[in-house]
């Protein structure tokens, strides 16, 4: 990238910059979608089920919200390496590997927040749903649907985590130009090249995107709440 400010890059519609932004969104949003598909049912199941060691599972889940990205990156790296157990898929140094690593990071966040939300709602709905003779699956579906506005916040927390992290994706993605370079790994690279103004500029672009995604989700939530209470 030539020596120019990030603002100039944005204004000039630099295709390389847009490719980086697109990849960042693609990786982080895909990870959030996958993590939601795993974490929401898992969190709801833990909220509604009583089993031995449940308290321990909840503490563990809450603790996993703070998983160090570097450790996750390393674990995923070793698993996806050609010499690792999943090496045959050839996923290391691809966007797929980055999505997997971020899914691992985000799933505990969504699962833990879902558990809390659904458990609170379950206290409120327990009698009504029991009186309607609703089976376990029906309960989970009803609770998840009615917790949907709170779950948006859980998804945003997950997205924030994914969009901000660099430790995991730089290890498993390799920061390959035009292929696995995202906003955060580009910032790390420009910092190491000593191009601090460009790094700061890219950082501002990243923050703007995160704010925009949050604003969008917030307005969807507000509109939905007005319609459905």
């Amino acid at each position, binding site marked *: 990238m030539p020596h120019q400010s990030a603002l100039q890059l944005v204004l000039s519609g630099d295709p390389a910059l847009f490719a980086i932004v697109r990849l960042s969104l693609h990786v982080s949003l895909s990870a959030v*979608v996958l993590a939601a598909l795993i974490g929401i049912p898992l969190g709801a199941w833990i909220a509604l089920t009583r089993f031995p060691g449940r308290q321990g599972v909840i503490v563990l889940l809450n603790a996993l919200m703070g998983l160090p990205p570097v450790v996750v990156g390393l674990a995923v790296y070793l698993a996806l390496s050609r010499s690792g157990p999943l090496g045959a898929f050839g996923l290391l*140094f691809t966007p797929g590997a980055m999505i997997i690593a971020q899914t691992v990071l985000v799933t505990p966040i969504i699962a833990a927040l879902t558990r809390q939300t659904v458990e609170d709602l379950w206290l409120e709905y327990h009698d009504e749903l029991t009186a309607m003779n609703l089976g376990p699956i029906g309960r989970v579906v009803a609770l998840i649907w009615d917790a*949907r506005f709170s779950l948006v916040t859980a998804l945003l927390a997950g997205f924030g985590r994914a969009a901000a992290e660099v430790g995991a994706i730089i290890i498993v993605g390799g920061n390959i130009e035009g292929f696995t370079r995202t906003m955060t790994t580009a910032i790390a690279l420009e910092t*190491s090249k000593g191009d601090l103004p460009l790094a700061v500029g890219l950082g501002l672009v990243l923050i703007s995107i995160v704010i925009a995604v949050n604003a969008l989700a917030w307005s969807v939530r507000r509109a*939905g709440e007005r319609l459905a209470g």
Partner: protein
Amino acid sequence: MNMLTRRLLIAATASLVFASGAVAQDKSQERSILVASTTSTQDSGLFGHILPMFKAKTGIDVKVVAQGTGQALDTGRRGDADVVFVHAKSVEEKFVAEGFGVKRYPVMYNDFILIGPKSDPAGIKGSKDIVAALGAIKAKGADFISRGDKSGTHQAELNLWKVAGIDIAKDKGTWYKEIGQGMGAALNTASASDAYVLADRGTWLSFRNCGDLVIAVEGDKRLFNQYGVMLVNPDKHPSVKKDLGQQFIDWLVSSEGQKAIADYKINGEQLFYPNASDSGA
């Protein structure tokens, strides 16, 4: 179905489309190889200069993962790269001897330079004797930043201390700081703390956050930095794209590739000197 459900479905579908888009993109790039290389070749901009020429000629996409030499060799050892392009001759030869690499080809060299603050607390500016300069730094206890990351530059630095007769593992004091990071990070640290640091010229020339740093020592033969390239052994790792990888190596050492390397300049200054024909390099 109400409005909200529909919107959520649209959003979910859009994400999936997004995801599948990348998969499709993947397939179109099947004629690609993965090269594990060093931060110096990447950060200096050399790859940005030569890879488009290679792609134009062969249609092969070269994906570069820039790591320290030690990590790049390990990436090759695990079979996660097709080609390894690094600068630490002795460990490269060991890599080939252990059967992880097929053959080592010398490609080019650049040189290391000792960078230091303008104030020059060790009084070595302008010297051409790296050994004497290192001795002076130690004697004066001037701050020195070491990469400490087993990269080629780090190994070259350790080697120079040895040549200077200093057992750095034993003799290092508070003036010697190992940061365990890449070249750029080491330069940033040196710039922020007015310390000396050993750098490769390519990274230095393209580095922008110089602050008060200047070149203190250059031109010593012992600062010579040889790059070699190796195909990862397909006998060990069948996933290695041996034909495409060998094509890249052959191009690097061909007259065309060598000229491309020689043509790369920053501010009119040549960064790398091709020497594939020098079989002893």
